[in-house]
């Protein structure tokens, strides 16, 4: 333990800790901007400066290690004056468009300016001027609002290992962008949106498609239906001011109806369907000698990642579309026919915790109904804004149920939102289908939690099924490299693009951090336990779908509507 003094308080803390860590113990709040615990610890913004006795200059608390006998002052007038001037400098290179910024009132820079009581910017010089990149269907980069904290670079490089963003040029002209200032749409960016989740300002944000949805809702000819992803119900409360971990299912459904959607359906339904298709695909590969390990294909960021960085492993991907796209294809075929609606009049909206879904719905493979299967994707953040625009106090709405039949689901579909959920749902079904026996407990705890790579062996009849589960693309890479090296003997691997799974997706409410992710995961499993049905193969609406339309898993119609293929893209193309 290291003993030091902070603001005249004695504190002992483990060696290797920072002054910032130690200050938290004694309740001294040191402001930060670039710092992001465990992800971005680079000491760049210089907001967290403190006074250390004997030091030649002020010291950045976020990176400075504690030392025995250190004497730290966090709030002397000179420290506060220095921080304030640094903040004033940052603001002097900021567009000051707060009122029209999507991050208004959810911006760390704005909060600091308010806390510091900045009332005047004394510098009227040049401002960073770089064009906005809106090439991507998912994300918009506005370098003018960038404070060069580099959190996006760290999360993209170290967590996702995509390295889409880097610093280029230098000094005042420094720009955070894809190499050679390439367009996001034209390079290896997987559109996961983790950058937008960590950006302290509005420099990287989701592409806002709210107006498209308002236009559809205003069009009397359109039959506007909506699906909500599993993770949205444990997130949306936060978007309208509820505590993290709130379960918001019924309120969200009610809110969507108030907005004027003709039908409120659930992606959980096609999550259940995915289990039947993907489970049977796995059994087929195991029994007939297909490519193993098979890897899940629900997460569009992961798909693009694999296409760019592991094109040689694309045969390992399940051919199943994601639940969102299965839903889209069925809405404009099965549902249209059943309801007697012209599919041309259906406007299919999807609410997702994800930015990559905006990209996925525009992929050329996703037109199997004869139309664009999903017309528009809104992130949880955007739906939160729609609720606000509509003046809906969702927290106080009476809870409502999803519409049938595409709104009927099980707990297995629900847990798709958390890392390990797809695997757990698959195991619940595969076990019972293969053995013909009922599971004593449906809870596969080994699948759950935030660990980057989880491994397990589950006995299914005579077969010990070896599985792996990864969340965050950097962790996926570890397993993929094993496959490449011929060292992986798994049968089935679940890969989710974002840390924690979809509940931590790039379209989630801000902030999203480890603590909040854990709360959303807890809420997910609580929601699962509340369900009467918890196994996908018991979903009566899915059974009916097969009887009325699809005939059987992996059948001809499934092949046409529910399965897809992938494109090797490579890098630097």
């Amino acid at each position, binding site marked *: 333990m290291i003993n030091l003094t902070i603001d005249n308080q004695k504190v002992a803390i483990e060696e290797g800790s920072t002054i910032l860590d130690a200050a938290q113990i004694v309740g001294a709040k040191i402001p930060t901007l670039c710092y992001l615990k465990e992800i971005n610890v*680079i*000491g*760049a*913004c*210089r*907001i967290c*400066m403190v006074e250390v006795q004997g030091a030649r*200059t*002020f010291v*950045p608390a976020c*990176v*400075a*290690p504690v030392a025995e006998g250190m004497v730290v002052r966090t709030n002397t007038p000179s420290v506060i*004056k*220095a921080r304030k*001037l*640094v903040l004033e*400098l*940052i603001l*002097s*290179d900021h567009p000051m468009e707060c009122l029209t910024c999507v991050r208004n009132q959810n911006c760390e820079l704005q909060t600091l300016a308010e806390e510091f009581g900045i009332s005047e910017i*004394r*510098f009227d*010089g*040049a401002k960073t001027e770089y064009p906005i990149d809106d090439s991507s269907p998912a994300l918009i980069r506005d370098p003018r609002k960038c*404070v*060069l904290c580099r959190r996006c670079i760290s999360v993209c490089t170290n967590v996702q290992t995509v390295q889409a963003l*880097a*610093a280029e*040029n*230098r*000094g*005042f*002209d*420094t720009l955070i962008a894809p190499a050679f200032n390439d367009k996001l749409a034209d390079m290896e960016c997987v559109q996961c949106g983790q950058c937008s989740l960590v950006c302290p300002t509005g420099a990287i944000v989701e592409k806002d498609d709210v107006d498209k949805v308002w236009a559809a809702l205003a069009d009397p000819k359109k039959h506007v239906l909506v699906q909500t992803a599993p993770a949205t119900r444990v997130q949306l409360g936060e978007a309208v001011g509820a505590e993290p971990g709130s379960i918001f299912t019924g309120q969200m459904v009610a809110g969507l109806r108030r907005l004027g959607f003709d039908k409120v359906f659930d992606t959980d339904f096609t999550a259940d369907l995915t289990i039947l298709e993907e489970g049977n695909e796995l059994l087929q590969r195991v029994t007939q000698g297909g490519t193993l390990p098979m890897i899940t294909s629900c997460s569009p960021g992961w798909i693009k990642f694999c296409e760019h960085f592991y094109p040689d492993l694309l045969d390992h991907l399940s051919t199943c579309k994601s639940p969102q796209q299965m839903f889209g294809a069925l809405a404009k075929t099965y549902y249209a026919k059943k309801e007697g609606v012209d599919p041309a009049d259906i406007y299919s909206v999807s609410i997702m915790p994800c930015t990559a879904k905006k990209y996925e719905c525009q992929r050329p493979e996703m037109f199997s109904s004869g139309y664009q299967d999903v017309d528009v994707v809104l992130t949880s953040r955007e739906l939160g804004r729609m609720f606000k625009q509509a003046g809906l106090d969702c927290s106080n709405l009476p809870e409502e149920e999803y519409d049938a039949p595409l709104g009927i689901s099980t707990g297995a579909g629900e847990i798709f939102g958390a890392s390990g959920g797809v695997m757990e749902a698959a195991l619940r079904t595969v076990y019972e289908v293969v053995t013909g026996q009922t599971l004593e407990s449906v809870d596969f705890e080994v699948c759950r939690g935030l660990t980057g790579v989880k491994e397990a062996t589950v006995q299914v009849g005579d077969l010990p099924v070896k599985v792996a589960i990864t969340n965050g693309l950097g962790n996926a890479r570890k397993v993929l490299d094993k496959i490449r090296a011929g060292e992986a003997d798994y049968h089935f691997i679940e890969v989710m693009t974002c840390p924690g799974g979809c509940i931590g997706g790039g379209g989630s409410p801000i902030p999203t951090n480890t603590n909040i992710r854990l709360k959303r995961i807890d809420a997910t499993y609580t929601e699962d336990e509340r369900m009467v049905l918890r196994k996908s193969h018991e979903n009566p609406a899915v059974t009916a779908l097969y009887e009325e339309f699809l005939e059987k898993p992996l059948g001809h119609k499934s092949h046409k509507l529910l399965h897809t293929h992938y494109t090797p893209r490579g890098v630097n193309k």
Partner: protein
Amino acid sequence: MKSLDELAKIRENRREALKIREGIPSATEKAHVMMCGGAGCISSKCTDVVDAMKESLSKNGIADQVQIILTGCMGPCDMGPVAIVYPDATFYRRLKPKDAEAIVEEHIMKGNMVQRLLYRSPGAKEPTPKVDDIDLFAKQKKIVLRNNFYIDPTSIEDYIANNGYAALGKALVEMKPEGIIEEVKKSGLRGRGGAGFSSGMKWGFTANAKGTPKYVVCNGDEGDPGAFMDRSVLEGDPHSVIEGMAICGRAIGAEQGYIYVRAEYPLAIERLDYAIKKAREYGLLGNDIFGAGFNFDIEIRIGAGAFVCGEETALLKSIEGKRGEPRPRPPFPANAGVWGKPTVLNNVETWANIPEIILKGADWYAAIGTEKSKGTKIFALAGRINNTGIVEVPMGTTLREIVFEIGGGIPRKKQFKAVQTGGPSGGCIPAEHLDTPIDYESLGEIGSMMGSGGMIVMDEDTCMVDIAKFFLDFVVDESCGKCSPCRIGTKRMYEIIDRISNGEGREGDIELLIELANTIESTALCGLGQTAPNPVLSTIRYFRNEYEEHIKDKKCACNVCEFKE
């Protein structure tokens, strides 16, 4: 190279062949012409003079009796091309190809010095023919530049002849690693890159640091405008750096060195590359050097044009192939350097000191200089001064001695106004401090710094606002952009000083500049940012009236600034 004897044999043989350069006439050779081949003299076409001289020698049938050697930089760049003709040690300056014939036919063949090409002190009627008598050289003390008049930088045997690699031999055969570190500590040598940290302590930290392998790195990213001390060493005496690094390798237990040289120094890179190859050929790099079971090799890394890569943590990143940006310290390179491993990083000039310290001993070295700053320091003289070029003087020499005695004073009878030391982030020192002895502490006290050794002299026609603006422009351009105070703060300072120099200065601008400067100094991430405000702070400190004139009277007394109408 398997033994000290083997080295001694090469040394003695070669020394015999080079006796003429010590002033001892030779039976077989008429002369050695040491033509300065520093980048400055090459720019003023010294190679044409060499060609003309060779032609004349052939014409006169004595080509085999005269050697012409392209040396490293001799220092007096404004007089280039310069040459020394041995055995007489006659110094010639401002040579043109047409002068070659006179030197060959008059001096070399008949023993008559060519009077019109000799050096004359400012105001002196008689020339000073011998190099050692010239005041510019006589007041210098050459430790780092010990070989620049004497050897062919492309000849490893020339280097060996002047005791080259004897220190490495001594370190490997006769000394223990701890003993080497102790000797460097005792010598009092401090880093010549500017910060002045004790080299011996740095080596000690690295030797004791956990983690292997360890590395030895040379910082040759000399980027201060007008500074070329390190270039002169790399071009003129590359083996001295290689030898210094190898000695350190032994001391700290490293087998690999990197020399990081800026791409703008192609000749230095070429000579260094050649020297490394030769050292390998002679077994002075490679495996089992001097039969002592010690392996060491060196690779060159070429910079890509970023000034900030002279900052040690940025340089280490750049060696790894990443964007050269500083990172917070700790950890220091001694614990986490290249590839995260313990690393000693010193600059070129520091390394070149090492062999002399090991060979002649810490006590000899510590006897030179001041109490806290030992040895010599090379300075690059530039600006409004008669003798521009590089000089090496003992620490403790005063600014006045350098500017007025060695540097020959201010041209055209102008008044001295200030001297800026320490590169673009140094301070401007006025006449009242000319008697300051040069050492790390004294320069800091008067608002400047040692830096790497740039020295820019200004006369009465220099506008101090304009000067501060010039240096700020440089740091704004070279800021890496990582930390906010440097990235935005220096830009804002530039904008303010720019408007002052345009006649658009506002009441309160000086105070705003000081506030910005103080905050940048105390909050910037690396040395570049922390020192960037120095030129502004020091000019406000010593020449505040000039700022006030610009702001209040819209007047530039030196008629340098152009005011907007």
